C-alpha cells in the first residue's frame, strides 16, 4: 500500500487539476456569455415554488406534531384548537400560492403543447 500511495496521490491530483481547470473555464465562459440568463431566471421561479413546497411540508409536520401532543395530553383542547386553526390557515394560504404559481406554468405548458402540435402539423 505504501508503495502505491504516491501514484494514487499523483493520479488524484492530476484528475482534480484537470477537473478544476475545466470548471474554471466553464465558469469563465458562463460569466462572459448571456446564455445562462434564461436558465437562471427559470431556476429562480422553480426556487420560489420549492420554497413554498418546503413551507407546506413544515406546516404539515407542525399540524401533525400538535395533533400528536394534543392526543398525548400535553396540549389543552383550547390551545390545540387555536394553534391548529392558525396553522391550517397558513397551510391553506401556501396551497393557494402554489396553485396560483402553477397557473402560470399551466399557461406556459399549454402554449408549448400548442406550439409543438402546430409544428407537428
Amino acid at each position, binding site marked *: 500500500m505504501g508503495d502505491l500511495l504516491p501514484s494514487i496521490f499523483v493520479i488524484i491530483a492530476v484528475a482534480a487539476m484537470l477537473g478544476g481547470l475545466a470548471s474554471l473555464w466553464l*465558469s469563465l465562459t458562463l460569466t462572459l456569455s448571456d446564455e445562462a440568463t434564461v*436558465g437562471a431566471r427559470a431556476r429562480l421561479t422553480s426556487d420560489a415554488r420549492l420554497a413554498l*413546497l*418546503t*413551507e407546506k411540508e413544515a406546516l404539515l409536520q407542525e399540524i401533525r406534531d*400538535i395533533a400528536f401532543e394534543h392526543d398525548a395530553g400535553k396540549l389543552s383542547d383550547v390551545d390545540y384548537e387555536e394553534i391548529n386553526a392558525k396553522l391550517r390557515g397558513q397551510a391553506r394560504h401556501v396551497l393557494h400560492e402554489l396553485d396560483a404559481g402553477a397557473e402560470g406554468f399551466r399557461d406556459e405548458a399549454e402554449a408549448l403543447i400548442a406550439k409543438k402540435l402546430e409544428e407537428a402539423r
Partner: protein
Amino acid sequence: MYWGPPPGCGGSNTMPALDIPFFGTLVLSLTLISASYTMAVAIGAGTGRPHLLPSARWGTYATVALVVVAVCVLAYAFQVHDFRIRYVARYSDRSMPWWYLIASLWGGQDGSLLWWAFLLSGYTFFVTRWLRGRYTELQPWVLATLMSILIFFIVLMLFAANPFATYIRTTPGDGEGLNPLLQNYWMAIHPPSLYMGFVGWAVPFAILIAALITGRLGNEWVRAARLWSMIAWTFLSLGLLLGCLWSYEELGWGGYWAWDPVENASFLPWLVGTAYLHSVLIQERRHMMKVWNVFLLALTFFLTIFGTFLTRSGLIASVHSFARSDIGQYFVWYMAFLIIAIAALMIWRLPKLKADNEIESLVSREFAFLLNNWVLLGMMVFVLIATTFPLLSEWVRGEEVTVGPGFYNKWMVPLGIVLLFLAGLGPLIAWRKATGSKLARAMAFPIGVGVSVAALQFLFGARFGYPPIVEPTEIYDTTTGTVLAWMAAVAPLVSFATCAFVLASVGQEFWRGMRVRMRKGESAGTAIFRLVSKGRRRYGGYIVHIGIVLMFIGFTGAAYDVEQEKALRPGETMAIGDHTVRYDQPRMEADPNKRMIFTDMTLLDASGAENGQVAPAKFIYRTHPQMPTTEVAIRSRLSEDVYVIMSTVDPSTRRGTFRVIIRPLVAWIWFGGIVLLFGAILGMWPTTREFVREEATRVRPRRFRFSPAGAIVALAIIVASMMAWVGVASAQDDTSSSLHAGTVVINNPIERQLFGRLLCQCGDCARLPLDTCACGWADDKRVEVRELLASGVEPSQIQDSYRAQYGAKALAIPSDKGLDRALWAVPVASMVLAIGLVVMMGRRWQRQGVRAHAEASVTTNAELAYDSRLDEELERLEDG
C-alpha cells in the same frame, strides 16, 4: 510515477523531479485567485445578476478541486520523504509507516491549516450540490461567505504558515519524525472528526449570513441550516468524545478530560451550538427568539475560529497546542472583522428580526428552553473566562496564574446537573402554557423514579461501593470553597437521581407516544417503530438525551475512583479495591520505529483466581529517545475499569513501579457517546418523503439518485462506526506519554487536598499537581510539605509560602482573594444577571399576553376544499 525531490535533497530516487514545494505554493496561489474570483461572481449573482449564479457554482467546484490538488501534493511529498519541505521534515521521518505519513498531514500547524481548508472545501462541495435548484436567493451569498472563509485560510497559509515552505540552506537527510504522542490510531480519527465539527459550522453560518444580507429572515434559513448544523454538531460531539478516549487511553493523564485549553476550545462551540439547536426549535414552532438564534449561530461559528486561534497561536500553554507563531495576529484581525460584520448585519436587520409571538407563561417549554440556554451559555462563560484567565491575568497585572482541573470540576458539576435536569423537564412541559395539573401528572412518575433511586442509594449505595455522599475536598479555604466542596460531596447522589429522573421522563415520552398510536389500532411493535420513524427529529433528540444520561452516569463514577502506586518485584502483588494485581515479568520487543518495554501483569479476583492480563509498557521511539511514552493498560468492564500505568522499570533488578486506578462506570461514557451519536444521526436522517420531494424538484431526470445531504450523513455514520469499533478494539491496549517516573504516596485527606492545589515545578510536568505527579522533584516536595504539616503549619500557610516561592502560576487554582476572585465571580454574576433578565422579561411577556399579529388567510371561498386537500396530505405524510 515519481515527482520526487532531486538527488541530494533528501529523496531516495534519482529520476528527474518536479519542484514540489514550488508547485504546492503555486496551487495555493491559484486557489486564492479562483476563490476570490468565485466570491466576486457570487456577489454579482446576489446583487441583481442571477445569470452569474452558474458561474459561481462552477467557480466553487474549481476552487474545491484546487484545494484537493494542494492536499494531494503535500500527501505525496510525505510519502516520498521530500525533506526539502520544512513541514515534511519536521513531522515525518523515513521509518514511519504510510498511515502515519498520512496522519502527519494534520500533525503540525501548517498542515492542519491546509486540512481545515480541505474539509471546508469538502463541505462547500456538498453544500453547493445540495443547493442546486433550491434557495436561489440565498445561494449566491452562501457561496460568497464560504469562499471568504476559505480565502482567509489560504491567505494565512501563503503569508504566514505555508505548508510547502522550504529550508533556506540545507535539506536534512531525514526528518525529525512525528511526535510519539501522535503516533497512534487516535491521530487518524480524532483530529479529522473534530475539524469536521469545527469546519461544519461554517455552512449554517454562511446560510445565516445569506439570510441577513437578503433579509429573508423567516424560517427559511432555519430550515436550510437545520441539517448542516446537526451534521456539524454530530461531528463536534464525535470529535470531543474521541478526544476523551484519546486522553483516557493515550495521553496517560489518568482521566478523559483535563480541561486543557485546547479541549476547552472545542467544548466552547459545542456548548453554544447545543444552545442554538434547542433555541431554534422555539423559532420554528413559535416564530420568536429570532435575534437570539442569529446571535447563537454567529457565536458558535465565531468560537470555532476563536478555538482554532487558541490552538494555533500558542498564546495559552497547552499540552497539545502548536508552537507559538505569528499567525495569531491574522486570526485577531479576522475575528475583529467577524464581530464588526455580524454586529452591523444584525443591527441593519433588526426590524426584520422581530418576534411574531411572545412567551405566554413561565411554565412552558419555551421557557424551559430559555433556561437550558441560560445554563449552556453560563457554562460557556465559565470555561471561556477560566481558559483565558491566565492570559488576562498576565496582561492586566503581569502575574502568571494557572487554572487547574479542580476549579472547572467544582463549578461545572453543579451546572451540568442543572442542565441534565432540564433535559428531563423540557419534554414534560407543553408549548405555550402548561397547566399545573397536567404538569404535575406528567412529572409524577419521573420524580418518583428519581426520588426512589436517591432513597435506594442512600440505603444501599455504600454496601455496593457507591456511597451517596463522598468526602468533601475544598479548593479554597473560604466559605465559597466550603459550599463548593459540599456541593461536590452530594453530587453523586443528586446526579444519579437526576439521571433516573431524565431516563424516566424520556421513557414516559416514548410510552405516551406509543399509547397514542396504539389507540389507533397499531400493535406495540408497530407503534414504537412508526413513532420513531415518523418523528425522527423529536425521538432522535430524546435518544441523544438518553446518551447524555448514560455519559453522566460515567462522569459520576469518577467520584468513586480509587488509586494506588507501589513498587513491585516480579511475583509480588498489590491489592486495590476488590482487585489484586500481580506483576509477572518485564518483556522487551522492538520494531523499526521503536523499542517497547512491556510489563506483564495478572489481575486476580477476591478468591485469588486469575481474572485477566494487562501489559502496561514504555515505548522509546528512534527519533525521540528523550520522550519515552507510557503505554497505559486498561481492563474495561461496564462496572469499572482497571487502569494500570507502569511508571518505571529497572532493567537490572526488574523492579517496577506501578500506578493502578480503579475507575467505576467509565465504560458508560463511551456507551453513552455511541447512543448520543445514534440519536443525532437518527434525528438528522432525511425521511423517504424528503428524498422523494428532493428528487421530484429536479429539473432533469437522473438515473443515479445522489443526495449530498444523505451522503454526508452516511459519512457521519461511517466515522461513528469507526469510533465504536476502535473504542471496543482498543479497550485492552493503549498508549500514553508521561515523562515522570516515581511514586506518589498520600497519607491523609489533608495531604490530598493540599497536594491537589500545588503544581509540580520540575519544568517537565508543570501542569501536574503534586497529588498526581510522580517525578523526583514532586516526591521531594511532598516530603517537605509533609514535614511542615507535621510541625503544625497550617495548609493555607504552606500554600501561601509555595505561592510566594514559585509565583501564582504554581498553584493549581488561583486564590479566592482580590482579582483572582473575578475568575468565578464574573461568570456567576453574569449568570445571575441573565436569569434575572430572563425571568423579568418572561413576566413582562406574560402580562402582555399574546400580541395580535397579522395572519395569512385565504380570501377565496375554497377553504373547505383546501382543508380536504390538507387532510389528504396529512394522511400521506402519515403513510409515507
